């Protein structure tokens, strides 16, 4: 589904990501781990189009997405979440959830002033958004400002709202960072549910390896901008190189 071949990214001559090739198949949950500064987040930003690549090629479902802008990539069905939850804090939970819906008639300035063009559509989107919010136990909170949510709720909403754009795949950057363990567990359960029910694919950066390894099919390990290893979770834990960079033994 997602293919990276020999992707590199330089910043001012410094190589942040070097020659990374990886692939994620339809319906998989794949982990991307590595010590701080190993280039994981940069790689995610490169895939999602926020940073242009220096070299290499990225394809998503047979489309070459290497040169595309983030909005085009989202439209092809590849969404992403952020490490710091990046909600629109001056907007309500419901508005945050509806916003990513694609091709809204009401987002056309010609139709927008006339409710009859978009009332129906908006109504349906609101119902759908409410459903998604209910799934993460936030149905009651739809009218609150996003800034009033707790940290864990923000992370959940950050993941849940991209569903409105019907993505086939999500890139997640530390979905449980700064969240208490029980909530972290439920965030991962939500991810597993999305895979089961919506057949969604995931590439997840995570530091909580114990949690991550319960849910992923395969793991890629990055170190100093390069891909160090790639295996199933059990095998990765046995890998000497990985143990060295991670645990120092």
């Amino acid at each position, binding site marked *: 589904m997602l293919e990276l071949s020999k992707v590199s990214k330089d910043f001012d001559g410094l190589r942040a990501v070097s020659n990374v090739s990886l692939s994620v198949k339809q319906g998989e949950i794949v982990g991307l781990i590595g010590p701080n500064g190993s280039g994981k987040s940069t790689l995610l930003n490169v895939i999602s189009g*926020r940073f242009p690549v220096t070299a290499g090629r990225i394809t998503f479902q047979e489309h070459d997405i290497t040169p595309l802008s983030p909005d085009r990539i989202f439209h092809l069905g590849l969404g992403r979440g952020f490490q710091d939850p990046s909600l629109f804090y001056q907007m309500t939970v419901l508005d945050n959830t509806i*916003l990513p819906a694609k091709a809204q008639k009401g987002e056309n300035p010609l139709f927008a*002033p006339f409710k009859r063009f978009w009332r129906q559509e*908006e109504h349906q989107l609101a119902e759908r958004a409410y459903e998604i919010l209910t799934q993460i136990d936030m149905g009651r909170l739809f009218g609150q400002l996003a800034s009033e949510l707790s940290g864990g709720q923000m992370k959940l909403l950050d993941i849940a709202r991209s569903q409105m*754009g019907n993505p086939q795949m999500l890139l997640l950057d530390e979905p449980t960072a700064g969240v208490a363990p029980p909530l972290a567990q439920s965030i991962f359960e939500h991810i597993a549910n999305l895979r089961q029910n919506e057949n969604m694919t995931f590439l997840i950066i995570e530091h909580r390896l114990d949690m991550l390894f319960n849910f992923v099919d395969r793991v890629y390990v990055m170190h100093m901008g390069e891909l160090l290893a790639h295996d199933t979770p059990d095998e990765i834990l046995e890998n000497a190189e990985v143990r060295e960079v991670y645990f120092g033994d």
Partner: protein
Amino acid sequence: MNIDYVATTIAVLTFFGIWSLMAISLNIEYGVAGIPNFGKALFVSIGAYTTGVTYTRLLPILAGRDFIHPCGSTLADAIQLRSDIIRTMPVVAFVNFGITLVIAAVISGIIGFAFSYLVLRLKEEWFLALVLLVGGEIVRIFVRGYQPLICANNGISAVSQPFAFMGGRSASIAFLMLVLLIAFIAYVYSERLIRSPYGRLLKAIRENEDIARTLGKDVAKTKAQVMFIGSMIAAISGVLFAVNLGFVNTNDYVVTLTLDVWVMVVLGGLGNPKGALLGAFVIAVLDRLTAIAAIQMNMAGFNLEFNFVRFILFAVILLLMMRYRPQGILPEPNYTTEAHDNLTARTTGD
């Protein structure tokens, strides 16, 4: 001196209507979408310059009269011709006025749209403010130096408003009604725009355009649309401004005009169209009051050029507002689409 209260009121309200248009457009651009348009004078001036051109070129054609060169030795004849047509052929005057509005809006909209794409190349956000500011000055210097447009420095006079044939006070009242009608339409449009999904999109872009982009929103296109809309409204206000004065001159469209509009929007409340109206009203009243005070003081023998005080006053208002009440007199309400009300009704009904 006796003050003609009725005439003053009409003048203040007319200026209020025209300035509301400018404030509404800046409110959509900066207040809602976060685009710092420091080139408001540019887009207003496009409306005014278009007026200068259509009143000298198009009007005689529409009236079936011969073109008289508007500058130089034939200046007086050209003015006579314009006044004759406007006074005796109201239909022609109206058609000309309507066409002027359309042409001005389209040209200005396209320029705003183009600017918006041009600035994608800018390294830092605030350079946009500088480029727009400077763009306005470049156009002004060009128009001032290039005679065929509006007779360079001399400008074009006798660009009367289309109701001039009625004469006297009824003409001013009729024009006032037209201005207020146009301002009202713009107000309703912006109010509805903000409360629609489009408004939600603009607010999202204002808050974090990077995130909006990763959620599939074409930020560049949306900003260009906003500049198109805002510039159209600004140009319409420019046409009204010019025919209200009856005179097109490059000196009216300088940086201080842009700053006046910023004062209105900051004073009234960023993001709230009602605030834009309120700001325009306060500024229109203050502007007239300082002018009257200046006249009165000079009559009373004070040797103080009170007109200068206007600028100091507005600058102080701007500073005080930004410092102590940055959200403006009327803060931005928490706009939502009606989807919220529907959901509220449904969930409480369960």
